């Protein structure tokens, strides 16, 4: 590394010049930090301002800089000068726009922004990327149903080689067994022919796609860009290298033999929707009991669904399927009548058109819970909510139980490998109320989640991941693969591996095909990102990755246990091994490391520690308390910026440092701040739990768990536990953020000053 030639550029535009004394800020940089090159400008983002900086860089007089201007979230493309590290000290949103102009406290805040910026700069290096070896562009698609077929086809169309792996001997999946499709094209009213056969033909004809049927995956090792996958086809094992994986293993029907209370097994004419579909496909709709034609048919919706004793969730497609089948039945014979007994009919979006079409065709919808299904008398007795009485529907020729979908997040045909370890890991993942296991901190028992045993679909792992954290793709509640529903729906917690279709959530054929396209795009991004050494979501383009100082490492395994993405394995000696392209750069490992030996080139414990220490702490008689806010850069920090943009004001005693994720916050920062004399500390991040908003899935939950133990630390320092708090905010909370901050400032203001000031 050549000699550091830092500069501080101070902008006076957008009201900064009117709000603070910029000369005094320049003095801070010059006298406190001995920065030689300081420059004030009326508008740094103007052509003239940018040209000035560019000249400095190109002339070789400056090779790193602090831009003291607007937030680091804006104008990132303008303030970029080759490889020179750039740190942005925010004087606009969080000073000029949110504090009274020319006030003493405003000036002090601005000066601290400069101090933190210059300090951060001194600890920042331009990261050198880690690029994967034995790189592969191939997309492996697991599952040959409509989702997998679509994924394969779309990836091939985009120019990527595809390896399509199917467990059975043929392509098409469940979709190939359907007699017809629900409408998926305008006007969304009529039953449409099943066109999955065409898709199978197209996939088989595509030279970019290698299809392997009768094939299972026995091992998946490596990382995005360079997965090593061992396939077993009839006992023959081969190893393939693939860049990314789309898991489209679909679903299995709920086991109807558990539905005796709904008459299953009481008559051959009480069938499931799947069985009826087979009859419709074969074209012979007759009673199984006596071969008579089926003219009066009733569908029992939610058979074993939305039922705490069976599937607690809605499978979303059964209503549409029953509507389709009922329409098919009444269309076949003018004498036929079809009844659909439902509690709530779920026909979102265009499915409402289909629903109406069925009503027009004379399909009769009865609102109420089916209480008793009598296979002897072929009667469905249900509690009609609109009549307020029990109504017996019968005698019927056929009763159809509309059963739900169970995700194939495991392979039902394979035994659970490492039953204890594998299943326990899955259960930990799906139990939303259990405390997150944090190495070294976990205490107490988690509350039992009532559906924990039903939440894990029986079977073995799909990919047999050779990861420290186990062979499964983590799942969330109800056994579906975990994914960030709001921001990154296809992302699993295993980077480069994407789920699509009903393994992710229940969906119909059209939705599955769309889902496949989304997942393929993600897979391509993973391949291209790993080629450059760039992170995936949400820190796309970040070339830094965690580095472990093995000399200091105590092999405590906290990082390997807590990494939300399973990016860190262990070698034979138990030392952590980073797989850089699996890593999402959240820094949860950094927050976990008790000896602060996990660092990023541009983000590390020492850097934030120094920033905390850089600020000036007025003495205990000044009545100027200091509050440290560690704000997650994903939602909290943007919300604070937006509060400034909206000209909300908040306490000038607050000093805000952005962090990658609350998971990256080390306990050392807390104790540094308290020892330095900060009066209060607030961690501001995303919602945790089963409806988490954390962009790194578990980061905020882990932080919460760690902070629950901070009380003891405070006690040992003879400090009130209220001085450290954690607040969940969303990106839409810009109006709430100032309130939250001010309330905390008020609470801290009412306490005695931190006695450790000036210690």
């Amino acid at each position: 590394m050549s000699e550091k030639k830092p500069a501080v550029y101070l902008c006076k535009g957008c009201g900064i010049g009117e709000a603070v004394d910029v000369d005094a800020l320049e003095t801070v940089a010059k006298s406190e930090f001995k920065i030689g090159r300081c420059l004030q400008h009326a508008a740094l983002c103007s052509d003239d301002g940018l040209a000035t900086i560019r000249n400095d860089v190109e002339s070789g007089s400056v090779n790193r800089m602090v831009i003291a201007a607007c937030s680091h979230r804006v104008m990132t493309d303008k303030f970029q000068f080759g490889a020179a590290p750039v740190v942005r000290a925010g004087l606009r949103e969080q000073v000029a726009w949110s504090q009274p102009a020319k006030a003493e406290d405003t000036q002090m805040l601005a000066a601290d922004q400069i101090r933190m910026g210059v300090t951060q700069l001194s600890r920042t290096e331009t990261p050198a990327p880690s690029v994967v070896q034995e790189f592969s562009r191939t997309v492996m698609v697991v599952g040959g149903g409509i989702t997998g077929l679509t994924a394969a086809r779309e990836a091939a169309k985009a120019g990527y080689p595809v390896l399509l792996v199917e467990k059975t001997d043929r392509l098409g999946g469940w979709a190939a067994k359907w007699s017809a499709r629900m409408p998926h094209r305008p006007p969304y009213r009529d039953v449409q022919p099943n066109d999955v056969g065409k898709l199978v033909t197209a996939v088989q004809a595509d030279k970019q796609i290698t299809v392997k049927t009768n094939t299972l995956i026995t091992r998946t090792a490596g990382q995005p860009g360079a997965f090593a996958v061992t396939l077993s086809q009839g006992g023959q094992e081969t190893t393939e290298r693939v860049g990314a994986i789309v898991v489209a293993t679909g679903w299995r029907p709920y086991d109807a033999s558990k539905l005796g209370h709904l008459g299953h097994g009481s008559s051959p004419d009480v069938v499931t929707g799947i069985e009826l579909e087979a009859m419709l496909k074969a074209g012979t709709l007759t009673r199984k009991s006596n071969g008579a034609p089926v003219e009066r048919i009733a569908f029992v919706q939610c058979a074993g669904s939305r039922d705490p004793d069976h599937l607690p969730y809605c499978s979303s497609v059964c209503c549409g399927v029953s509507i389709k089948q009922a329409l098919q039945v009444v269309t076949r014979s003018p004498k036929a009548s079809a009844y659909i007994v439902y509690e709530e009919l779920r026909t979102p979006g265009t499915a409402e058109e289909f629903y109406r079409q069925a009503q027009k065709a004379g399909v009769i919808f009865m609102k109420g819970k089916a209480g008793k299904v009598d296979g002897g008398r072929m009667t469905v007795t249900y509690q009609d909510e609109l009549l307020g009485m029990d109504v017996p529907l019968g005698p019927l020729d056929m009763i159809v139980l509309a059963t739900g979908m169970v995700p194939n997040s495991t392979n039902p045909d394979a035994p659970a490998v490492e039953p204890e370890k594998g299943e326990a890991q899955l259960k930990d993942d799906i139990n939303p109320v259990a405390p997150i296991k944090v190495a070294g901190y976990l205490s107490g028992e988690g509350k039992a989640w009532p559906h924990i045993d039903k939440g894990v679909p029986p079977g073995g792992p799909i990919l047999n991941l050779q990861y420290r954290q186990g062979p499964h793709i983590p799942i969330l509640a109800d056994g579906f693969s975990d994914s960030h529903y709001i921001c990154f729906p296809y992302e699993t917690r295993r980077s480069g591996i994407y789920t699509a279709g009903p393994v992710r959530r229940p969906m119909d054929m059209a939705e599955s095909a769309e889902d496949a396209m989304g997942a393929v795009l993600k897979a391509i991004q993973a391949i291209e990102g790993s080629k450059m050494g760039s992170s995936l979501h949400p820190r796309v383009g970040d070339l830094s990755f965690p580095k472990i100082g093995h000399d200091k490492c105590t092999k405590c395994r906290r990082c390997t246990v807590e990494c939300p993405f399973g990016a860190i394995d262990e070698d034979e000696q138990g030392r952590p091994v980073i797989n850089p392209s699996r890593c999402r750069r959240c820094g949860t490992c950094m927050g976990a490391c008790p000896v602060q030996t996990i660092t990023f080139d541009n983000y590390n414990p020492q850097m934030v520690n120094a920033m905390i220490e850089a600020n000036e702490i007025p003495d205990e008689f000044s009545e100027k308390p200091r509050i440290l806010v560690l704000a997650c850069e994903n939602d909290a920090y943007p919300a604070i910026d937006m509060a400034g943009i909206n000209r909300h004001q908040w306490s000038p005693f607050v000093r805000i440092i952005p962090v990658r994720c609350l998971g990256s916050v080390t306990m050392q920062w807390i104790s540094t701040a308290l020892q330095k004399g900060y009066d209060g500390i607030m961690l501001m991040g995303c919602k945790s739990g089963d409806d988490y908003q954390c962009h790194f899935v578990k980061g905020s939950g882990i932080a919460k768990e760690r902070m629950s133990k901070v009380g003891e630390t405070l006690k040992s320092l003879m400090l009130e536990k209220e001085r450290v708090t954690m607040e969940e905010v969303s990106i839409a909370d810009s109006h709430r953020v100032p309130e939250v901050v001010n309330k905390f400032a008020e609470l801290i203001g009412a306490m005695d000053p931190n006695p450790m000031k000036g210690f």
Partner: protein
Amino acid sequence: MTVAPPDTSTKYDLDFAKWVYENIEGGDKLALCMQCGVCSGSCPIGVQMDYGPRKLFMMIRAGMKEEVMTSSTQWNCTSCYRCVVRCPRSVPVTYILQDLAAKSAELGYAQKTNENVNFARSFWWSAKTFGRTDERLVTALYYFSFGLKEGYQRGLANLKIALNFVKRGRMHIGLPHRIKGRRQLKAILAKAEEIAKREGLH
């Protein structure tokens, strides 16, 4: 014959809804009823009905033909058409109730003491015989359709009104008003009845 009497051997008749959809005027539109209840909420005398139209329509779907066909709902409809213009699914509620009334009379569900049936029969007699409604005769016939005694009582109760109307020239004394083409009308109606028996309305 399109009007087949519903099966009366069971309390619930699964085919009843289908029968209504196919045989009651506007019944096909009933399939689209979404049970919102705007009809019942709009009805001026819904509270006096055994069931509001919404509930009656659900009972049709549940196959409760006996209760539906003998319900007072269709007989209390005042033909204000508020439900018709308000129904978000364009179900012609009034028309359906009117035809349910007609069919329940035709199929013998209506009781002998049913005021509407007796009134309708008196009315039709006048229309058919004279080609005009003679309010005086229709009212008298209607009153006495309940028997001599009740007819007399009902007449007496409205005597004052009648006398007042006579005084104002709004009720005439003398022969009924009648059309010239009575023979023609009789032939037309007889033919219409014959076609209806054979083919129904539509």
